[in-house]
């Protein structure tokens, strides 16, 4: 039986990796992948707490998040493709129209 704390620790590490990926990497595709990591870290938490508390509602939430993630990644990839067509790049450094 794996300890709850261990699972939470792994989830935190996953989330941190995701955050770091979002904040550090410049490629839009990698950022999208990092977001998936963060979402999956959250899913792991949902599962862990569901298992710990003996309720299934957490598992249902995890399924819901996976659906959301699928939709999100579809929209995100479409955006990246549109962006590439428009600007000929997927590097987010180059996308700085909001620069003051």
């Amino acid at each position, binding site marked *: 039986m794996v300890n709850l704390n261990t699972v939470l620790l792994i989830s935190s590490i996953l989330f941190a990796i995701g*955050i770091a990926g*979002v*904040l*550090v990497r*410049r490629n839009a595709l990698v*950022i999208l992948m990092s977001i998936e990591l963060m979402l999956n870290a959250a899913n792991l938490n949902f599962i862990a707490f569901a298992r710990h508390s003996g309720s299934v509602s957490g598992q249902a939430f995890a399924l819901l998040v996976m659906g959301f993630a699928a939709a999100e990644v579809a929209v995100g990839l479409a955006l990246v493709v549109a962006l590439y067509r428009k600007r000929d790049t997927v590097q*987010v*450094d180059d*996308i*700085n*129209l*909001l*620069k*003051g």
Partner: protein
Amino acid sequence: MTAEMTLVHAATTAASQPGTLLWLIPFLPLFGFLLNGLSGRKLKSTKVVDFFALGSVGVAFLLTLYYFIQLAGLPAEGRSIHQSLWTWFDVGGARVLGGLTTYKIQWAYKFDVLSGCMALLVTGAGFLIHLFSTGYMAEERNDGRYYRFMAYLNLFVFSMLNLVLGANIMMMFLGWEGVGLCSYLLIGFYFEKEFAAVAGKKAFVTNRIGDFGFMIGFFLIFQIFGSLDYDTLMGSVRAVAHLPAITLYGHTASPTWWFNLIGCCLFVGAMGKSAQIPLYVWLPDAMAGPTPVSALIHAATMVTSGLYMITRMNFIYVNAPVALAVVLAFGSLTAFVAATMGLAQYDIKKVLAYSTVSQLGFMFMGMGAGAFSAGMFHVFTHAAFKASLFLGSGSVIAACHHEQDMRNMGGLKKLMPITAMSMILATFAISGIFPFSGFFSKDEILWKVFEGWYQHGHYTGPTLNLVAWILGMLGAACTAFYMTRLIAMTFYGEYRGAGHDPHGLSVPSEAHGHDDAHGDPHDDHGHDDHGHAAPSHAAAHGHAAPDSHGHGPTEVSWRMWLPVSILAGLAVVLGFLNYPESLHRILPIVPSELFSKWIEPLLYQVAPAHHGEHVPPAIEYGLMAWATLVWAPAAMLLAWWMYKVDPSWSRAKAFVARFPVLYRWVNAKYYVDEFYEAALIEPIKRFSAQLWSFDTWVVDGVVNGAARATLIWAGLMNWVDEYLVDGAVDLVEYFVQETSGVFRGLQTGRVQNYAFVMFLGFLVFAFWKFLV
């Protein structure tokens, strides 16, 4: 007549007969005017114009004749035919003496003893002169303005008939202004020539001065009487004259004082219209118009309207001794001065113009002496002989190819016998030779003036009468002289226009000789009123116009000599209509004083002032014989001797050489025009120039100054706006711009930076939530 004799005035409204067709007399010429004026331009043939113009005046003449005969059939006290057409305007509520009036001015005509005669004169002479014009204006038939001339003439006849037939002063004033307008239009008929346009303006402006006096006069009449109808005025004048005092405009004075004022004001109007000193200056210049106009308007009819008005207003004048004296003084002065001006003129129309002014002066003398019928009678005889002379001069001018200088004429008696005979008869008439008409009218006037001096068996009358009589006699001599001079220069000797000029008398017709030496700019006015007339026109209308250049003058067509001779015939016989009582013994078959008796119902009768005792008949006979047998013939013979007996005019030239200054002054008409120019016109022009500069500098200056002040203020405001308001805005903007650099650095535009900040914020929140 005796001293206690007072007649009730005969002419009252009740005695008037209705006349249903009376309105047609003035309106027929109006219709002629409208027809010709509106359609004349489009009419193919000028014969249609002739038909309308002559027809309307001719029928009006016949109608006048019909009413005149009807009038003669009425009893003397009721000789008045009246027709009221409509209410012209209502002056009810106006404040007059004794309260508010309810008077309505009627558009009404009154055909009585005076207006009937005048209407006969206007339509009769008018018709003859229309007929003359069809010949004289033949050259205009082709250039499209013939209809305009005829239409103006018709309009003039309408206005003049309104003037004489109107039943109240307002109607007279309407006609008065109308004839002034027509005079202006016809003097300036050749308006493309500057002198004609200037002469027209001069006539109009001078007349306006007179009209001003006339208007003041009848305004005062309206204020005092509350009415302008002749019948009402004549009916109430006796009552008004016996009022103790009249107060108007805060001034209280006796009725006589007011009547004197009215009389003088009205006389100012008569001065303008009838060309008396000092307003006569327009009449000689008016000769710039075509000659029929000079005959009709400026000799026979319009210029007599002042006389007509004074006769009509005799009830005022009889009660206004000072006004009468003023009339007498100005009349006699004009009669003399204008006659002397005629002595040294060479322009045939100018001679006749000054003669007209002088004769009008005689008429006013008669009025001034209280002899209204004598003055009025001279109006009619003068109309006959002066119209004849003017039309004759028109024939001469036309025959001599529009030459007006008498030095370039001469010998025309052989060439134009009918015109010459007519003019010679008219000359006898105007000179006052017995038994031509001028004798009966002019000498009657002079006699009445003399009689005024002789009072109560002693020569103690007003000295003015004596002076006026002497001036009149001198004027009569001048008249006889210059008329004989005119006849001798024009009709006797050799024709000098064709180059045959043994004595070197002719002058270049353009330079006009006598005026340029004195720098008189007015003298060449009216010299050639047909300057545009091309020889081809004359040739094309040879039947009416005289022959073309290159031939000598010949007799003019019947359309021209017929009116001249008819008028000359009238000038011969007309005098017998007022055959003096004192000559009854010589020609007992002639009824005496027909005209005076005819006009008598119109005249206001007072207790006669100086008719109490008559001058002994011996004096009357003596003066008559003296005037007609010695005085006038002597002047005529003198002129004959100077200009006919001696064809080189050396006697006249010797006289001029001996008295050059006198000649220069007379020839230049005493420099009156120059005096007016210098004393009145120049100052007025200078005054207007000053007003103009006031306008430019002060009035415009105020406007421009306001504009400039606004500009300066706007500049100031612009500065404030630019530097203060905009400065404040710019300062804020600058401040924001400068400080924004700090924050701008934060705004990298990179999504990851924002996400990082968001993450940090989340961390801070989380630490704060869970750890603190």
